[in-house]
């Protein structure tokens, strides 16, 4: 079978996920097994991945890079507080819309494999930085200290939201997203904060 690099990478991710779904432990999945299932040589697969952990890490990065690209485009166009609020909310919408069917397993790996945990922490800082900037511009007038504390809280609840949303059905995700956004908005409307 002829595989373009992009297709082969997608199939490798799918292969790793399918093995996990078959009740295999991640430690029991190796590149040789995946290469065999994909009908390619181990050397070919090694051109793209160094280990099973690397497959999950690169898939995690790919999803987030795509999300950040879309989000950045929205942020770049924003001019008014209303635009910044929209860019803030757009992120949550886009995040939920683009969750894959295997988002639950991808989350488990991102919280378990050391390289994925490191990336997750780095990315969390990146997300938090953007939240901070958007909250500052979308809900102007907050003191810096309040802004920092509220940003921290929003980041915390967003990561709790991720953990919850990946484990529910698609139709329920939209309802939860709506409630979640309302909760976040209520919190951010509190200008002086306690």
């Amino acid at each position, binding site marked *: 079978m002829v595989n373009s690099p992009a297709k082969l990478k997608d199939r490798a991710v799918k292969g790793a996920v399918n093995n996990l779904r078959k009740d295999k432990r991640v430690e029991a999945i190796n590149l040789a097994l995946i290469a065999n299932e994909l009908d390619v040589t181990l050397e070919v697969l090694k051109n793209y991945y160094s280990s099973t952990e690397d497959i999950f890490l690169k898939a995690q990065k790919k999803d987030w890079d795509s999300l950040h690209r879309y989000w950045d485009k929205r942020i770049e166009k924003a001019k008014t507080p209303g635009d910044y609020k929209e860019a803030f909310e757009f992120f949550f919408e886009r995040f939920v819309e683009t969750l894959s069917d295997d988002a639950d397993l991808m989350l488990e790996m991102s919280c378990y494999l050391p390289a994925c945990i490191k990336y997750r922490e780095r990315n969390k800082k990146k997300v938090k930085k953007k939240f901070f900037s958007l909250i500052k511009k979308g809900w102007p007038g907050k003191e810096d200290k309040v802004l920092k504390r509220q940003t921290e*809280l929003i980041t915390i609840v967003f990561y*709790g939201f991720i953990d*919850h949303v990946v484990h529910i059905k698609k139709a329920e995700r939209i309802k939860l997203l709506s*409630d979640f956004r309302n*909760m976040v908005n209520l919190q951010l409307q509190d200008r002086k904060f306690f």
Partner: protein
Amino acid sequence: MDKKTENKVKIINKTFESVKRDNKSIENVSLEEVAKELSMPLEELTSFFLTVEDIYLNEQLRNNRRIERYLESGLSKIKTANDAKALFENSIRVYVESLEDYADAVLAATFYIPKCLEERNRMKAYLKKTFKTIIKKGWPGKIETVLDRQTDLCVLSFYGLYEYCARANKKERKDIAEDFINMLNLHLQDRLFF
């Protein structure tokens, strides 16, 4: 502390010290290695734990049981709405304060090790049921669907807080817990919810 408990604690601490020191994933820690570091016969160690996974599960259960005991005891004493509110707030403080320094390692395991994942799901269902009872008593007058939706948001936020605290130092944990409690209070004061 009796000798048996003391040895059990030593095993737990040494295991997590090893995990954190070398940034290891679970499969790279062995009971043999822990026994060697403790100068303890392997037979003695295995009288407490048969696998490294058992050590992780033990820690997870210990944390969960502590908060469950606190909630059950509090629930049996509730007389007024204020009692319920105080129980809700204090349970969050108790949970955060009782997290060990190696809570991040335990958290990672709860996302993946089958027994830990099962316990995580059980605890989440328990918290949902218990928080709902407490919220109903502490913030009376909410209709059932609102109560369910607000409880879901509280539970998912709680897991976001857990993830944050597992990686934060004690001072940061304490500070964020107070902001977090205020945020949930604001959310729960909204009687009709959107």
